[in-house]
């Protein structure tokens, strides 16, 4: 059973549901200083290891960048 999700607009196909932290790890995305929202709701970092993604989830990962 594959699960299709979006991460920052990019489509990703997973073979099975994973925790958020696993998704990020498998994509080798550094997450220091980042925040994450799923379907518009912020998920605190502490919950990343336990929050399992669902079919159609739209995930946004934010980081601090240079700005005024």
């Amino acid at each position, binding site marked *: 059973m594959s699960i299709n999700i979006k991460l920052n607009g990019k489509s990703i196909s997973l073979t099975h549901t994973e925790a958020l932290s696993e998704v990020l790890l498998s994509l080798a995305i550094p997450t220091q*200083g980042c925040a994450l929202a799923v379907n518009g709701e912020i998920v605190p970092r502490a919950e990343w290891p336990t929050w399992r993604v669902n079919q159609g989830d739209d995930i946004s990962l934010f*980081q601090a960048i*240079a700005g005024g």
Partner: protein
Amino acid sequence: MLTIADHCFQSRLFTGTGKFANQQAMMAAIVASGSELATMALKRVNLENQDDDILAPLVANGINLLPNTSGAKNAKEAIFAAQLAREALGTNWLKLEIHPDPKYLMPDPIETLLAAEKLVKLGFIVLPYCHADPVLCKHLQEAGCAAVMPLGAPIGSNKGIASKDFLEIIIDQAQVPVIVDAGIGAPSHAALAMEMGADAVLVNTAIASSANPVQMANAFRLAVESGRIAYEAGLATQQTQAVASSPLTAFLE
């Protein structure tokens, strides 16, 4: 020493991190400026081409982080951005800025006040960027903002303290620190703001877009220090003329 909320700052020059050539140039300039507080934006990570990490070098240099809500067009978006920022950076300090107008980047007073009220209740230390509107600043203060950040001139315009008359009123009436933000294009502008009694200034474009950002940052550092010293020493003022022809107090003889 400048106190905002529960934090003391030695430097009254705050800086932005935007518009520099690269992260190294940014850090060199910020260090040269002596700034202890830098603003940054939040955006979605570009998975293909990741941006430089600006946080690590800032934190390593002991510079406090002030994330902004740049990009938000209304209170709802700003509140969301604020919560992301708090999550990402681990700080509840926030520069609230809402500009639905992408051309001139003028801050939206109504959405800013609405967002400020909610964000204060959510436990943020809110530093709102706003127009130099004295009544708006009073409302923001009453809402619980830790400071007010009225603009000197439009963002990036380098026009200086165009809002001088209104900043004077704001500085006179404020019971929280006043940080003049936006439009400061030259060290003399920053010195003027400090001489007027502003508590701090925020400078980004003027430093980042200079041919020599490190030198310019140093110049701003000196200007802010000198302006503040002059203010505290008490500026001599010009005499105003206009003396009526006949004595007004002769009747007392």
